[in-house]
């Protein structure tokens, strides 16, 4: 099994290399696709449809079935597109490596070998809590990372109301609650 991690040491090289392979495969696929088509198919102008049941003169009644496009070769890479919500500048790090920057105008696009395991990254944006997220490589993926401001944590699962946060639901002041009487 190739150690693809060695490629990420320099992400530019890795991404570039994989993109290169992807482009080559895409070009090859395009070439094969194009070569499978009839060699000279002149552009045609579409005539208005004839009335139903009255085929125009000189046309074969049994129309040839439409040519089905050949299947695309399986992709060997997965493209991961990172954006944030709300849209802002953010960095995306994978362990020691900074993969790149998301900006309001441009998502960060990473290309990985397809089905090569997940990519666990941390997204950091000024004024927001850091977010750890995961990108899978089974297919091309768009990841919209929802950002939360430090003063809005009560909207998140796991937010812990402070003990001295006020009054209990029954109006009591905070205190240790004894276990209920033995049933």
């Amino acid at each position, binding site marked *: *099994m190739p*150690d693809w*991690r060695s490629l*990420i040491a320099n992400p530019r090289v890795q991404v570039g290399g994989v993109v290169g392979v992807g482009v080559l*495969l895409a070009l*090859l*696929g395009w070439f*094969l*696709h194009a*070569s*499978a088509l009839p060699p000279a198919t002149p552009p045609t102008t579409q005539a208005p449809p004839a009335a139903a049941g009255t085929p125009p003169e000189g046309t074969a009644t049994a129309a040839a079935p439409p040519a089905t496009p*050949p299947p695309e*070769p*399986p*992709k*060997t890479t997965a493209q991961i597109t990172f954006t944030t919500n709300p849209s802002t500048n953010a960095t995306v790090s*994978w*362990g*020691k490596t900074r993969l790149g920057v998301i900006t309001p105008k441009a998502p960060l696009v990473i290309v990985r070998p397809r*089905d*090569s*395991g*997940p990519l*666990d990254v*941390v997204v950091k944006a000024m004024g927001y*809590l*850091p*977010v*750890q*997220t*995961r*990108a*899978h490589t*089974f297919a091309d993926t768009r*990841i919209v*990372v*929802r950002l*939360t401001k430090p003063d809005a944590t009560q909207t*998140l*699962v*796991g*937010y*812990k*109301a402070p*003990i001295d*946060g*006020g*009054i*209990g*639901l*029954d109006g*009591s002041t*905070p205190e*240790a*609650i*004894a*276990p*209920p009487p*033995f*049933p």
Partner: protein
Amino acid sequence: MTSSYTSAARALCCLALAVAGGCHRSESLPTGATPTHPEAVTPGGKSTPGAHPKPVPAMSEAEATRARNDLAPESRALLMVNGAERWVDAKAVESVGYTIVDLRDDWTPTIFKEEHGPDGVLLPNRYRRVFVGLANDQLDNDGEPLEPHEKNYLELYGVFPSLSVLRERFVQDESQPCHDQDSVEQLESVETVSYVAPQDMKRDELKLSRFAKELETERKKRKLATIQDLATVDSQYAAKLGLIDKRAKEKLAISAVEKRLACEGLLKPTSKHAKGVYDDPMRLAVRSFQQKHMIYEANYLRRKTVDALARPLLDNDYDGLVRALRERIVSAAGVIEDGTVSAQSKFPVRNLVDEYGQEAIKQLGLTDTAAAVAFFKKHPAEDFKTLRAAVKLPALPEYYADMMDLSIVVDRGDVWYDLPFDSNGNFEQHGRKRYPSLTLFANYNGQRFALARWRTTIGGWRAEQASDGYEYYRYKMSDVGPRVIRQIVSGPVWIAPTSTPVRSLVKGKTVNGSFMKLVNYDELGPGYLSAYGLVAGYFVTPGQNGRPDWDNGVRAHGSSDYLSIYSANGFSHGCHRLPNHIAIRLYSFILAHRTKSVAGDQPLNFTRQFLQKDKVYDIRLPSRGYAYYLDPPLPVNVLEGDIKGPQKKPIIGYIPKPNELYPGPPPPAPNSPEAKAGGM
């Protein structure tokens, strides 16, 4: 032009598939197993030995078993004839009643085989690649490459090592035995080694020293020749002398354990282990040893672990080979009877797991350690890319058929609804004499009999995180009454309810050279550590009058938490847990002997964020797993069991933990099915 496209495209597809694991579909895979209609499905897509009706052989056995050295490795199987290896035509020998045992490194149990849809399109299984990578010491549970020389040791969790991995063990251990008579004697002199926590060691030593002085003083006082004489004449000193002797022996045994674990590569020189102390590095090394040798014990030096540590490495390797082969033989033969049903039962069944396992191993000539070493010397690792073997197994019992009348009964055993602590907040465990069990039954000729019975779990009192962010206790109920399993999911994903304590949803891991906290996908799955284990059957109440099934979140599933299954105080969140390898056998058997349709990967695209400390974690689950549907569904009945104690009904809602501070009264407990049963 078209043909050039086709051939080029095929080459390209093959190139891409080669990257993914192979260019051709192997013969032994159930080609065409997926039916266009569920009723068209056959078990495994091939004839089961002894199943009805028996196929009429198209050739004689002599003809089928003639040597075929001309065949490509993918088409042949290894047959042992009078102790000599012979390559035969795999299809031919199968047609005359032989069973093909897959010894290839990319073998998976039936539940991870990739099936075809009704339209013939391959339905890929996302977890298959990881499962094969784990078995071959190539990937970790996340599907990322292992560090060089890192090993998985996952038998205990249902992932048996591939033949190449076992081969490497045999070859290495033959040259490095890690076994000496002194160590054996030191280990055999103790049955177990008492656990003394590192922080208590000094105190323990002082106590022993005090005992020794006390005994010596008393010996002198009584003018006896030895301390043993003192212990003989006065029994009050016997216990103290016994403890001194025990610790002395244990000290030597610990030294032998350290030596063995270091030699076996499990206790690394770089670890911060302090000699003679049962510290964390030692505990982790013992855990790896137990995982490697499939020892179901807590991570201490208990009897089975000490016994295995005293055995030669190659003997342990041989046992590992037998276990790995057994799973493949069971899978190939499609059997489940493992001797767990009492022989004294009204309808005793054969132990086919042992019977077939032993017979196949005998026919393969792998009857002892030396034979296994010779086999692996003869077959290099490369052979296990294509190696399959042919064995002739005894006929199946007459009740076997492609479509069997099967059912499951879960007996909850002794059930306590009472709180797990008293009125003063002191924890107390309620004793159980009868533990929960899961039994697979067959109906044949009007008789109902058990095929296998395993210990399982039911729900109990578990910690849950309420909407205020604090943990409370909640009774997690295992439903009672008739249900069905309509859906079986391999590589299932558990969608943690929002009540799951966030501490269990975060783990530490080194990612690309940097240690970080991340979402604990081990718990969510897919994976052997996941809450649902490697495979799950979903219990549902069938919908009536066109209504959908009612799913209350209870499943019978695999689990890595074997202590919860086998310990006196083990409980689940409502589900019925089985060790992963048993769950794999159970559902592989059901899928092989019931009509099924294959739905394949179930896209999910689930996301949820949660907060822990000052960081947000994003759970992303792209798939629910790989689904099979049974039609008709498999009947299940969950028996209420014996309700013990004064509390006769389960307590609803959250109960504050004793001696904890809370901001107010408990919030209402969520009532969704997954929150009620917790789904694990």
